[in-house]
């Protein structure tokens, strides 16, 4: 019997989406400590990605005015990344850091050994600052 699924684009019907174990596949490419390729960044200087069972957690260290600012370990959601990394199934992560006055919603992926993070910042403190998006690149500390 053929099973039919609803869809809004062909990729929703990709048979690979039915494969088990997506979240554990190739997660090793993400785990570890990552350093910003820009040593003068005014944003995130460092990321640490951990995995405990099926759960991912991300913490960060940001550049501050008088020293680093720690972004606390925050649970991340893993998604199958249909872009393959080195011929293997990959995983992308999404995470939201909530500071009360500002939320930073990010997605993270690894491309050819470079971790790319795109962060959408939303301010709720009436400071007049624009909500903004930026992207930064990280390499794995060895």
């Amino acid at each position: 019997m053929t099973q039919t699924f609803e869809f809004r684009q062909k990729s929703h019907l990709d048979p690979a989406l039915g494969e088990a174990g997506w979240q554990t596949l190739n997660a090793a490419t993400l785990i570890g400590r990552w350093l910003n390729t820009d040593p003068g960044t005014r944003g995130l200087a460092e990321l640490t990605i951990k995995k405990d069972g099926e759960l991912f957690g991300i913490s960060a260290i940001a550049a501050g005015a008088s020293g680093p600012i720690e972004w606390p370990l925050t649970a991340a959601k893993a998604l199958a990344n249909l872009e393959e990394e080195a011929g293997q199934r990959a995983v992308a992560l999404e995470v939201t850091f909530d500071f009360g006055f500002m939320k930073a919603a990010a997605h993270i992926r690894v491309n050819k050994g470079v971790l790319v993070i795109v962060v959408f910042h939303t301010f709720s403190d009436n400071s007049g600052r624009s909500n903004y998006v930026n992207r930064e690149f990280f390499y794995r500390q060895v």
Partner: protein
Amino acid sequence: MQFAQIRDRVDAGAVTAGPIDLSPFPGMWVNSNPDTNGIARLVASESGGRLSLRVYGIGPNGLIDWGAAEARVFAGGPSSRTGAGFTCVYDFGFAETRLEGMLAKGLLVLAQFHMFKDDSGRADHFVREYFALTHGRY
């Protein structure tokens, strides 16, 4: 002014009043990959200071119109008023798709998060595609 990274500490004088300029977005954005199985194109339009999107997915028998959805707009920095990205959510019932777009040198980099709600066993997944604004100049 609170900040969680030094980039977000902005001099009060550097923050200008007013909405984010939406002019970088309107038009038809076409996928750079003619063989995509995802989104073929999207049409962005501005009305009354709001940005809306109309997305067309690739189906087995042609384009699938996702309908219009309002987008949240983001600048390129905390003191910028020029649009540089957006987010948008489509709820199809069986799945929710969240779009996160970022402009880079005339290219729209569109991250797509597809989350299934229909117990079909399909994996929630991430796709990134590239789009160019058709401008008719060449």
